[in-house]
């Protein structure tokens, strides 16, 4: 595919991480375009010209009703088919924070029973009932997703009020694990599974931080890899020095390479 894949970064009213998400994709070799929701919803078929789709973080439409709900409904109604086609033809997509909430509300993630349109999990209020901006560690627990490599860890800031993932029921929960859809889980400072707050910032079921779809080409995650992209983003770089390849950069490089 293209040497310099084209990435579409779609923003709605209230999206606020679009510039840094586009910067991350560009820095990893993609050619990124930021597009407001209106023209995208009017002509979702323009996605045919792209290999990557990113739904960045923010508060789409104020996160009124539920986080990601309004934009999720709009995307499901008007662009769901196009996004499914994008990954079918070898493209990839990522939803970060509010973007993850949007993909969950449109039912694209996890999309167990049908590709989209039927939400099977939700992302709701953190157990501590407040917005939290803090750095968290995650482990990649599946080899299903093109954006990630199993066994690696990812250190990045979580910044959300509604990140507690709850599956609809026990069957959904089991299937997520069995099919390797749970790709990222919060871990403790020494790699412990299922850590307490603050290491798991929201109380998510099974410490789930990220999911992938049936193709493994769509990633949704609550923490922000684009905020651990430059070496000085790291909260203790003045103690431990500047990393050559920050964790978040690895994730974007994998995603861009997957569509090259």
């Amino acid at each position, binding site marked *: 595919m293209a040497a310099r894949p084209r990435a579409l970064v779609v923003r709605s009213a209230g999206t606020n991480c679009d510039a*840094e998400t586009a910067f991350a994709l560009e820095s990893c070799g993609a050619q990124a375009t930021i597009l407001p929701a209106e023209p995208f919803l009017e002509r979702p078929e323009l996605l045919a010209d792209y290999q990557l789709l990113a739904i960045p973080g923010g508060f789409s439409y104020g996160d009124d009703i539920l986080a990601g709900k309004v934009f999720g409904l709009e995307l499901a109604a008007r662009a769901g088919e196009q996004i499914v086609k994008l990954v079918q033809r070898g493209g990839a997509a990522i939803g970060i924070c509010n973007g993850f909430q949007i993909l969950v509300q449109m039912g694209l993630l996890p999309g167990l029973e049908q590709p989209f349109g039927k939400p099977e999990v939700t992302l709701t*209020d953190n157990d501590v*009932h407040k*917005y939290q901006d803090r750095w968290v560690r995650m482990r990649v627990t599946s080899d299903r997703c093109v954006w990630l490599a199993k066994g690696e860890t990812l250190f990045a800031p979580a*910044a959300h009020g509604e990140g507690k993932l709850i599956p609809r029921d026990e069957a959904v929960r089991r299937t997520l694990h069995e099919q390797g859809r749970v790709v990222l889980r919060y871990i403790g400072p020494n790699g412990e599974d299922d850590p307490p707050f603050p290491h798991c910032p929201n109380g998510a079921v099974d410490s789930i931080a990220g999911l992938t779809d049936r193709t493994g080409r769509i990633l949704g995650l609550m923490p922000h890899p684009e905020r651990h992209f430059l070496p*000085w983003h790291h909260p203790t770089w003045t103690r431990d020095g500047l990393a050559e390849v920050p964790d978040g950069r690895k994730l974007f490089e994998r995603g861009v390479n997957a569509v090259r």
Partner: protein
Amino acid sequence: MAPNPSPTSAFLRVEVATRSGLPDAHAKKLAAEIGRTLGHPVEVQLIRGYSVAFVGSPPGEEATAKLHAVLADPVLHQSQRLAADAPVPPPPAGWRRLDVVRRPGVMDPAAASVLRALEAVGFAPRSVRTYRAVLLRGAADEAQLQTVAQRCLANLLVEEVRLDPREAIAPFGELAPAPFRRVEVALRDADDATLVRLSKEGMLALDLAEMQAIQAHYRKEGRDPTDVELETLAQTWSEHCKHKTLTSAVELHGDGAPRRYENLLKETIFAATQQLNLPWCLSVFRDNAGVIEFDEQYAVTFKVETHNHPSALEPYGGAGTGLGGVLRDTLGTGLGAKPILSTDVFCVGPLDLEVEALPPGTLPPRRILQGIVAGVRDYGNRMGIPTANGAVFVHPDYRTNPLVFCGNVGLIPRDKIAKAAQKGDKVFVLGGRTGRDGIHGATFSSLSLDSSSSTVASGAVQIGNAIEEKKLLDAVLDARDRGWFTAITDCGAGGLSSAIGEMGEELGADVELSRVPLKYQGLTAGEIWISEAQERMVLAVKPEHAEELRARCKVHGVEATELGTFTGSGRLRLTFAGQPCADLSMEFLHHGLPKRTRRATVAPRAAAAATAGATEPLPRDLDCNRLLLQLLASPDITSKEEIVRQYDHEVLAGSAVKPMVGAGGFGPSDGCVIAPRLGSKKGFAVGCGMSPTTGAADPHAMALLSVDEAIRNVIAVGGRFDRLALLDNFAWPSVDDEATLGSIARCAEGCRDAALAYRTPFISGKDSLHNQTKTKDGVIRIPPTLLVSAIALLDDVTGAVTMDAKRADHHLLLVGETRAEFGGSRAHTLLGRAGGVVPRLDLPRAKALHEAVARALASRKVRSCHDLSEGGLAVAAAEMCLAGGLGAALHLGNVPRPAGLDDDATLLFSESAPRYLLEVAWDDLDAVTQLLSGVPHGVIGTLTERPVFTVSGLAPKPLLQIDVAKLTEAFRTGLDF
């Protein structure tokens, strides 16, 4: 009249609750809050309600599932559809139901999103009203329910609570447009008493001299003013817009030869900037924010605003709109700067003061702090602008009048700094619709609070809508880059009247008020003109681009409306549906305010120093361990983690030094560092300084101390001293008496003296007067408060330094002299001692010290650096240790000090300035010492692997020994709110 709650078309309600067995964090938190208020546990369930009117009849039963899919989460919620005439579902036995609804006319930000979501799935909603229902079990009696309603559920200014409601909540109907009525105010023949009465009745906040000036003007014009003209004058001449107290002439008496300032701030603070004449200051005291050079292509803007009185009444809305306002200041600077960093400083009363201990009508400080933190959090986070620097101060005299300072830094291309509306440009308003919000906000903030404020001023409270402002921001920056407009300003205090009045000052403007898009009908021309509805900007649009602008705004979901033309006539002419309602001379509007001369007195300097100095030294048997732990847990020093973590302080990915640093991520950073252009290492640091405990004793010293602390906070993280700019914010009680006016004058002189000596110019500022409250027991006046904010450039953010101790065996170097200076110190506050010498700054020596420290940091040989401020050396060293998870062994023998000072406790806890603590490796000690030559400094100890903090005194014996874990625990006590 506000909008009418009676519906105009059929409607239905959907009520959504969390399924049983699933967590509801909101309900849990509310139950805890109610339990705390009532003193016993309660149970709470929450219901979210949506009342929706449709075009035509509501969707049939077959569409119910789709309706639920929009308004509820299939995983979490159960929802219930209720017809318009269905009764309110009764709560289970033993429970009570309380409905919380917004009052008519109060912003309902979620309504627009619900409309949009319903449309997305094919419904045709007409209007939406959202509400909450609280189901409560465990209130003992009706009195407890009332307490819950008032203290935990609602702010009765903007919401009402309906106990055991029977009637369904209906969507708002539509009002008829208000008929236009031209009102002339009979002013020409009024006597003085009538003039005063007219001002008071109209809430104009104009004094007799001002009313007389207006009278004289209209006598000359040979007619009476219209109500709209009078309002326009009142808004434009308000303290809030014109700062007339501090722009009047002041004669200062009492400390030597009397001196006169024609314009106090202009001839002190601004004059210093002019005198320095630094080429990197690109726009100062002219625009909505100060502007300095950043790199070859960009400049940074900085502005700090206050929003005090609204925050006293409705802390959540007040603080949110405070932040929203300063963000629009950034957006209204030049042709529009992009906001990239927010700051917040709060001054509140002691958090354990309960409502019973406060004057009637006052919210308890704890609730005020909860509200303002939530307001800044929700507005800032939704805007996607990091809030990464701030402070909290607690003092009893802020109990009725909290201070809320919100600041913002913006980034702007250097070729977009200049602006000027041109004759023929179109007057456009962009953004939110206009309602009755905040009518008289500008004049309200110019009056003092009293117990009736909470009722009379309900119209002055605005509720913000951050998403509306985010859209506006995106649209304005887009249009800016396309070059479609020639000038822009924000609609702040005074609304359109101030914005258009200001932009058209040179040209004049014709404006048709009936074109202004309204939230609801029924507003009069005058109300439209002065409404302070949030999230609006006024632009002067090139006529040939008006169409494109409208179309492009639509893409961003922003309304853009042409209201008129900048004419060149020099007159402000307003019409409503073609009928004239004002025709004012811009010259009189902007220059007709009568100039006054006010006399001010200050205490002779020698006398001030003598009374301030008369205190005994600290007791010889002082328990230093105990005092240090108390200091670390005290409100001004303790960790603000609880607040900082609720703010998105890393969005935009520019964060290079965060507000909290160190091994555990809770060390209190002196300032934050941002690299705003992704991929570039060029950055800036922001910090602040404040010393409200010294202002009453010595306002001049307070100014020097505040400037110095702000500077230390940015130098300590690696900021350049020679690219450092300052902002002033004066928050004072009423300055109607000579002594208080004198105190603000001395403070302004202090700012000037520091700026000139350090060559650190002030680039913008703001004052807020009348911060006092009338109670039946007398007037509560806030301490005179100066906030100084600093911004300093860094050529390379990878050279930034943080305050956490880095490695065992590194040395700690104290820079700066310690003297016995306890005036206003935290040690004195905690020990209940009054008086004491206010720290004195020797400006030339202090300048040399800052330069030396900046040089040392630039050498990259300083591993950590911390400013000494509240709590002195003991607190600074303890904070470095707890942030780095290391111990330290200090010896006071090497502390630089004047001869004869031999008191250990003084060396530990005095708050002399300027001082810094530096961590340096053994190998680098010579090099760093060299860079500090000529400046008092001494190696006072080393860092240790063993996590214990020990200090030995001048007589070499143990003075203090505490485990770092205990220091950490004390520091992380946090504020209880």
